[in-house]
């Protein structure tokens, strides 16, 4: 939290305390005024009380207004800051721990927790503490014993009760959160899977599941309401009994009618800011859990370690050399599994160390979908496991990044979204197993192979989205690990798998790849991607829907291609550019693409072989290894995967 916000927060607390004190003063002064007047003193004796009563009455509202306004302002700033921090934490490539609907409910809820924490917990608690203290001081001046009772009552209602509700709420929210997530997932299924559900007549069953999830949640919420009810009752009880006890003590001690009345009414009013703290305590459990989750996301180790001092970005023309590259996908870490890694992750140097393997190891131990892999050497501690991996990129000298005998640098952050070949295909084997490739300026290389062969992983490694286990990639002789990840992606990028269409206009969706592009440039990119008809029909300023739902698969693909062409990186990576296109369009697109990319350094991942005779080299990947390489003509001439594929393609075409 920055200084401005800290200052505002102090002001808010002060204003809140002032408002509570004014309330207290108002009732104390009025009580004194009335009971003293009943003793019929001279009028002058009452004048101070009269003035005080009026002054407190006027100032209370003003202070309250200031408090609430300042408090909410701070809270909203804090929330915005939390969102931004969260987003920043998600920027470095990493495996998404949770997706879609879950992410929505969690992120929106969690970032609001910060607001709740400030406005509904910290602020009122601080103000109530100050007001309570003032009431006790008033009590002390009249009757110390009564003040002690008041302290006890206030502590009960303001400390013990909130602590109790917080503990109870923590227990309950641990049970409610999964129920809530389950409901959100069921609803998301109903919404996103409506076509599949309807077509298979499974919508009733899915609706039933959603309603069952709702019922489970409702049952838990009903039981949780009892905690709230008990707190409400407890507060009422403590307040009433404290006042009664104070009166009893005061009368027994002969404090006089003035003293007794002031004591009683002060005690009564002192509880007013204290009683809501029980409800605040209830919120605390959820708030703390949300903050912990946010911290976890922030502490998550990126998939790749960024160098401390990145080498300067190499200038085009670029020569890319891939040398004996091995990439192994780490087991999927469980969402809550990385809690203990936060400690080392927060240190600036530590974040570059082995926290990844720590969380991965923990993730591997969690039952369920966490276990994709055998979590190799997961017994090694966080520090040990990661050290060798961290040393090479930062030190640079050890550029080979050899796996240490004790533990491999586990990679937390394989991105399923861009990944065609999930480790799911095969538990133990690396996704890429010793791939070498040389891409000189202007050279075009096509990578073909069955799904799961490692084609997309190769692109991910080039875009510095996954950390290689061994081997290296160099750009003009500079190891990729010595470069800033963003610089790498500025040099090598293009059409990635599963491109995303944002909820924005068509123009903005394109321009994210070229913010400075003028209309002519945009039009050219659209033309090269064979999208111009659709763009003309749709209109440049049409909002595209969520998930690109109003955009068909082929259009989405071409839109993504247009982006890649617009971005125009020195090394163009194309992951299945013709996927989901109809045959005719795909053929035209590919032949155009091969025209457009002539003399451009291009790495093309494809499963369509047509036109590949135009590229300089074809690399056939199977199970992470290069099984064939050469020019199209050479590959067709010899038996093997390529020729099989070629023949099946030729024969299925007409």
């Amino acid at each position: 939290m920055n200084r401005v916000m800290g200052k505002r927060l102090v002001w808010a607390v002060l204003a809140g305390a002032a408002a509570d004190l004014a309330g207290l003063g108002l009732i104390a002064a009025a009580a004194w005024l009335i009971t003293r007047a009943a003793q019929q003193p001279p009028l002058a004796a009452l004048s101070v009380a009269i003035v005080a009563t009026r002054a407190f009455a006027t100032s209370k509202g003003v202070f309250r207004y200031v408090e609430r306004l300042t408090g909410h302002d701070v809270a909203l700033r804090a929330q915005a800051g939390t969102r931004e921090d969260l987003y920043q934490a998600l920027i470095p490539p990493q495996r998404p721990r949770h997706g879609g609907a879950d992410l929505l409910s969690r992120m929106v809820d969690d970032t609001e927790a910060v607001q709740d924490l400030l406005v509904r917990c910290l602020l009122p608690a601080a103000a109530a503490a100050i007001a309570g203290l003032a009431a006790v001081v008033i009590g002390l001046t009249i009757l110390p014993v009564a003040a002690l009772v008041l302290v006890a009552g206030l502590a009960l209602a303001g400390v013990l009760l909130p602590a109790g509700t917080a503990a109870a709420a923590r227990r309950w929210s641990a049970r409610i959160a999964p129920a809530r997530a389950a409901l959100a997932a069921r609803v998301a299924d109903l919404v996103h899977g409506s076509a599949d559900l309807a077509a298979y007549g499974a919508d009733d069953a899915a609706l039933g599941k959603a309603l069952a999830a709702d019922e489970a949640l409702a049952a838990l919420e009903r039981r949780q309401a009892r905690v709230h009810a008990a707190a409400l009752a407890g507060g009422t009880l403590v307040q009433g009994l404290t006042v009664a006890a104070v009166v009893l003590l005061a009368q027994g001690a002969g404090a006089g009618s003035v003293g007794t009345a002031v004591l009683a009414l002060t005690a009564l009013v002192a509880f007013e800011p204290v009683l809501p703290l029980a409800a605040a305590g209830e919120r605390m459990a959820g708030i703390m859990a949300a903050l912990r989750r946010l911290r976890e996301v922030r502490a998550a180790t990126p998939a790749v370690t960024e160098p401390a001092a990145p080498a300067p970005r190499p200038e085009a023309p670029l020569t890319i050399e891939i040398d004996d590259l091995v990439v192994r996908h780490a087991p999927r870490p469980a969402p809550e599994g990385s809690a203990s890694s936060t400690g080392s992750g927060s240190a600036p140097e530590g974040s570059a160390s082995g926290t990844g393997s720590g969380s991965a190891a923990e993730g591997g131990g969690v039952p369920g979908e966490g276990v994709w892999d055998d979590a190799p050497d997961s017994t090694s501690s966080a520090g040990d496991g990661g050290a060798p991996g961290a040393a090479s990129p930062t030190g640079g000298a050890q550029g080979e990044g050899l796996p240490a005998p004790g533990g491999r640098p586990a990679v937390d952050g394989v991105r399923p979204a861009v990944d065609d070949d999930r480790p799911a295909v095969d538990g133990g084997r690396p996704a890429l197993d010793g791939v070498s490739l040389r891409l000189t300026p202007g050279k075009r290389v096509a990578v073909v192979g069955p799904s799961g062969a490692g084609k997309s992983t190769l692109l991910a490694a080039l875009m510095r989205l996954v950390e290689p286990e061994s081997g290296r990639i160099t750009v003009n002789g500079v190891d990729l690990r010595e470069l800033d990840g963003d610089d790498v992606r500025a040099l090598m990028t293009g059409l990635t798998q599963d491109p995303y269409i944002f909820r924005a206009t068509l123009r903005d969706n394109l321009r994210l790849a070229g913010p400075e592009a003028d209309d002519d440039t945009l039009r050219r990119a659209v033309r090269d991607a064979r999208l111009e008809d659709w763009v003309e029909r749709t209109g440049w300023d049409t909002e595209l829907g969520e998930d690109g739902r109003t955009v068909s698969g082929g259009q989405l693909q071409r839109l993504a291609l247009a982006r890649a062409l617009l971005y125009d990186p020195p090394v163009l990576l194309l992951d299945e550019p013709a996927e989901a296109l109809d045959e005719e369009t795909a053929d035209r697109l590919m032949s155009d693409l091969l025209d457009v990319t002539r003399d451009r350094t291009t790495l093309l991942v494809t499963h369509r072989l047509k036109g590949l005779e135009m590229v300089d080299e074809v690399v056939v990947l199977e199970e992470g290894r290069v099984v064939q390489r050469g020019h199209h003509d050479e590959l067709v001439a010899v038996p093997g995967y390529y020729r099989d594929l070629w023949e099946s393609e030729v024969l299925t075409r007409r």
Partner: protein
Amino acid sequence: MRAERSVRRHLTVTMAAAVLAGLLVLVQAELLAGVLSGRFTAAVLAVLAGVVGVRALLAWTQGVFAGHTATGVKSALRHRLLARLRELGPGRLTAHRSGELVTLAGRGLDGLDAYLTGYLPSIAVAAVVPLAVLVRLFAADLASAVIVLVTLPLIPIFGALVGMTTKVVTERQYRALSRLGGHFLDVVRGLPTLRAFGRARYQATVIRQVADAHRSATMRTLRVAFLSSLVLELCASLSLALVAVPIGLRLLGGSLDLTTALLVLLLAPEAYLPLRAMGTRFHASMEGVAAADAAFAVLDDAAGSEVRSAEPRAAAEVRPSGAPEIRLENVTVRYPGRDAAALENVTLTIHPRERVALVGESGGGKSTLLHLLLGFVQPSEGRVLVDGMDLREADVASWRARLAFVAQRPHLFTTSVADNIRLGAPSASPEQVRRAAAAAHADFVEALPHGFDTVVGERGANLSAGQRQRIALARAFCRPDASVLLLDEPTARLDGRSEAAVVAGTAELAHDRTAVIVAHRPAMIDLADRVIRLHEGRVVSDTALTPTGIAPSDGTTTPAITTGTATPGVAGDREDEAPGRGQGAAGQGDRMEDARTADARTTDADARTADTDARTADTDARTADARTAGADARTADDRGGEAAAASRESGGKR
């Protein structure tokens, strides 16, 4: 509805408890004033403690029943919302932003808590308690009662005035919040794409801008909303001062006794408190009310558009006979908000057991045609007949029970792979599931960590596109009783070999069924008896590939089937399965040699010209003319013999 009755009962108890507790405060004040003034002995404090105890009990009751009320109402609303979502169906669901719907059903409805548990009971209290206080005040002291009576109405008046001005703003703020949530999710989901184009960091500033805009909008609302509470607070505390000071002066004069004075001092705030509490709770619940409005908007929206399809719900059961005949009569489909019709005046008959491939450019209306058959969209004009019965009058569920459907981007549910496969056949045995998976060539499932019990990540996050597609295909296979097969580009995302395998499986699946397949890839088209080309919503060619016994009336169709039958199952060799009907295992290498002859190229050109002719021919593509042209195209293709298969490839080879 039983649920709604019990909700009403719970609400009544909640409000009654709140009102009773409020009235007991009067009793409490009476007792306290008596004790403090010395009219009652200290023993009365025991009675006071008893009253406090009862109040606590009532508070507990109120809390528990408020919980019941809230969960009851939310469940009821959620039920209706989700049921409506299902009724809306995939066709209209796309119009809503799915993320917003998911939020609405979860967090959005939770916003109602404040309204139900806070605002509603506070209305009851505000209606009863101030009145009771006034009555008691009039009985005790006329002058004070008049002051309270005069100032009391100021609170609701000011409250209403300010409330009216803030209502619109609050509603706008809720929409902004919802948009903010949507925007944040959108950006996070698209992060891989942003990262690929180096825009991820820039987007952080956009997030900040959106949050800042949201904050200033919120603060504008709050400045006004809190102004109302300022006025109310001032009213209440100034009135207290207005009451207390004259009372003190009158006590001084001896015209009032202390008990009454203390009673007035204790009671006067209780007159204002319920009204202020109501105001506060009103503001706190506004967000929830806005959420409820959004929920009702979805319900109303549905109700509005439902009128058309709801009226003829005679729901004639579609008899589960064999493969049906499907006839489209002058069908036009228009989507709301779009000028061009998605389908325009389409008339065609799909005969039982016919296999129809729908081809054409993306956006031509192929998917719409499938959705029409699925009952997701209704024809704007014309009708769809299944065995002579209008689909609109048919019971959708019984019709869909006969379908097996694979969507373009199938949704995988967060459940086990097995459950995903048996979506349309919940009673399918594990063996049947296994067989379905095998038929869809989803053999990778066995290699997953938990085999068929592996839980699929959200939206199939941990599976590749091809794997997802094959699971969806297995769904279709797991419905052996389906008589109509509807496939939307089932092989669009598969590589050549898996494609061949899936084609083989599809051929098997299509056997003895009516099949409508949106196809881009020739291997799939080869399966068809008939190819229908759609362009801009119209049928531009309709070509029979094989004599199906229901030969086209013009009879000019040449046995173009040869292309298909001559196609050897090369691709299938490795899989031990032949693709399509191609059983003739022709040789391997020699066929390739002279495929790229000038002859073949010319043939191809001819075919294309013929095809273009077909497209430009009269829009009623079923005229003999167009069909002949199409048939000629086929014949031309056929003339190329086996070489024709390679002719396409020749286009690329120069």
